[in-house]
């Protein structure tokens, strides 16, 4: 078996800025847009780009993620010659192999990558919302005779100091890389998507390991080292929708924008579908009392209350006279009667007793998975 390119999705990040939402599940497994999980976007992009072999590197709270991915069949990645492999840290004779960083995670999985004999290696992160044809990027990599290609996106200059910034010449060659520069010279931010000529990356990783040189992180170590050694490193400019949903605010913002049917991501486009695991549920039912405006609703819901500018995921029940506004309700949540939820993110399997209230003021309220809200005793009511 000989794949020209295989993908490695780095899904091991802790995502601690998502607070309660990543306490028990890995960031790439966090639900998005009513019926997706964040990693569905990378997996679907791989599938749609014709990549057949995908390694998903997990580390932190991987249970939910592993069961979500399964054998990859939901993304059409269970083909005879390829497939999805979940790669977890493991102990070996040389000791524990906990991943120290993005590049270290690749180093630890060299034998997996070698077993597929790829010419190129595509490195993805499992926590971005975007649609991208990796084949175009690979063509660019080949055309430029690059050994490393970094996907970049233009960000507003005033925000550039939050990103890894690539300074390029007029042939798109990267001449300088600055991690979170105070005074950015350009606004080309790294998307955390790389294509490497595998033979070259493999040499850097193994040699550095032998000489004790730190090569743990792509942004901090590998790309600078490539540049220092005069490798052909190019920036591939991407101009579609791309969002890092690393914080509660950005997760909420991206979800709210996603409601709009004219959203740039064009989720209803049949030519580039975003696949997900689709559990079977009956259609959603709106009772005679239901009022739904400017919202997304998924199969299995039972809605007797009001829903305004919100996303309601699978199998959610919303009782009579309850009002949901500007909120994301994740799957299997049960909301009683007269409940008010505003400006909030509610985790899966949460329960709201009758009359409960969750209203996010300046900050977004977050209700964790399986959390119970309300249900005070009679006196307290």
């Amino acid at each position, binding site marked *: 078996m000989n794949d020209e390119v295989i993908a490695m999705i780095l899904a091991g990040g802790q995502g601690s800025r998502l607070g309660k939402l990543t306490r028990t599940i890995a960031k790439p497994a966090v639900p998005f847009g009513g019926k997706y999980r964040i990693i569905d976007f990378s997996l679907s992009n791989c599938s749609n780009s014709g990549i057949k072999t995908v390694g998903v590197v997990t580390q932190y709270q991987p249970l939910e993620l592993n069961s979500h991915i399964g054998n990859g069949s939901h993304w059409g990645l269970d083909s005879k010659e390829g497939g999805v492999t979940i790669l977890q840290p493991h102990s070996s004779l040389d000791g524990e192999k906990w991943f120290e960083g993005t590049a270290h995670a690749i180093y630890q999985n060299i034998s997996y990558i070698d077993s597929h004999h790829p010419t190129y290696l595509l490195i993805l992160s499992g926590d971005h919302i975007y649609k991208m044809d990796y084949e175009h990027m690979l063509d660019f990599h080949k055309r430029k005779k690059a050994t490393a290609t970094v996907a970049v996106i233009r960000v507003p200059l005033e925000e550039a100091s939050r990103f890894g910034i690539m300074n390029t010449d007029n042939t798109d060659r990267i001449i300088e890389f600055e991690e979170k520069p105070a005074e950015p010279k350009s606004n080309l931010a790294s998307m955390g998507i790389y294509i490497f000529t595998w033979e070259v990356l493999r040499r850097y990783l193994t040699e550095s390991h032998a000489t004790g040189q730190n090569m743990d992180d792509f942004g901090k170590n590998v790309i600078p080292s490539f540049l220092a050694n005069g490798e052909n490193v190019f920036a591939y400019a991407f101009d579609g929708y791309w969002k890092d949903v690393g914080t509660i605010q950005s997760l909420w913002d991206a979800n709210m924008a996603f*409601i709009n049917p004219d959203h740039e991501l064009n989720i209803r486009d049949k030519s580039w579908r975003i696949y997900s695991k689709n559990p079977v549920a009956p*259609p*959603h039912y709106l009772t*005679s009392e*239901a009022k739904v405006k*400017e919202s997304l609703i*998924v199969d299995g819901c039972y809605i007797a209350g009001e829903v305004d500018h919100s996303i309601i995921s699978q199998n959610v029940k919303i009782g009579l006279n309850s009002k949901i506004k500007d909120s994301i309700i994740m799957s299997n949540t049960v909301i009683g009667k007269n409940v008010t939820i505003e400006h909030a993110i509610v985790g899966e399997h949460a329960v709201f007793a009758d009359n409960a209230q969750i209203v996010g003021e300046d900050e977004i309220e977050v209700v964790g998975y399986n959390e119970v809200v309300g249900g005070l005793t009679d006196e307290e009511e």
Partner: protein
Amino acid sequence: MRKNKICGILNLTEPRHVLFPLTLARPVASLPFCSRYRLVDFPLSNLTSAGVETIGVFLNDSIRSIYDHVRSGKEWGMDSVHGGLFFFSSITSDPGEGQRRLLDGDIYNYFKNMEFIEKSGAEYAVVMGTEMLCNIDVQAVLRNHIEQGADITVVYKTVDQVAKSDEGLSCMTIGDDGLVQGLRSCTLHNNGEKALINMEIYLLKSTLLMKLIRNVVAENEHCNLNDVLHQAIVKLPTNGFEYTGYLKNINSVKSYYDANMDMLQDANMTALLKGSQPIHTKVKNEAPTYYSKTSDASDSLVANGCVIKGNVTHSVIFRNVTVEKGAVLNSSLVMQGSYIGSGAELRYVVLDKQVRIEANTKLIGTKDKPIVIEKNSIISRILEENSGLSQVESLPEKSGDREDYHPSLS
């Protein structure tokens, strides 16, 4: 349970002319139901929930639409190393015996393919169809069958009164010992009395089923498996198993429409779809359904992938349907991929798949006679059925509107 204890026989040779035009190009089993299912999902899920690993699908004609939906049976867990799904289409002429036509009766199809039952190695066989829409626990039927020790178990449902449309069914008399004493057509049933409706679901030893088929073919090749089983349950000691869940006999456009509308009542929906036995179906990747600011939807079932901008009440909507702003949809059934233009008004209408209703079109059917629009139609005229009791007539409001009939780009 030991593997392959029961083999399933899906008898999909049901008459379809009664559901024209909905069944012009599909068997009854392929009829879409309740926003995202097809009728075949029910017996198929019931069988697989009971651990049935070998299922034979018997059809009178093209298997395309059933096969398209079921494929390997993956969604029902049927793509395992044990058993699987087998499709048997009826032979209308047998090359071995010249051009003799075998159009009458389906028994020859079973006889020719009986090897399937033998090879499954299953001790029991269950025969089910799709016309009797229900959600039944086949394991409970098997337990009851073994307890009662009869040769055959037949499933029935007690109804207070036989509906006019169900007169084509048969009903049974059952003695105090729980055994079937007689079977007759529902037309002969005394009105106003309780009736035990035969649901055409049978459980019996595989060897007995094969013997029954073999014996009847020796005498008469032109009959149906149902007829054979009708005779058998009267002749042989037969146990009646009472089903108490939701049942609808899908034998007319009206009963099909009613069954869908029944699902708008939570009790029916729960009984059929939300009980302990899940109904599986082919999974599609659809975006969530979007409701716009201008939408006003209530008392409706809606599948994923829709865009709702208009007014929807008391309706059942399938995947990928668009209801434009200002459109009014009431008491209607809209199948997958249909489009309803702005200002259109639809009451008591059944739209088959991929229908396009142009803006300002008015289609008004009645509860007893919903207007059915065929698959892929484009409609831009006014059609109204007067809501009389028996007299139904077409009353085009503006005759000139027929000129508006024009094809659409999408």
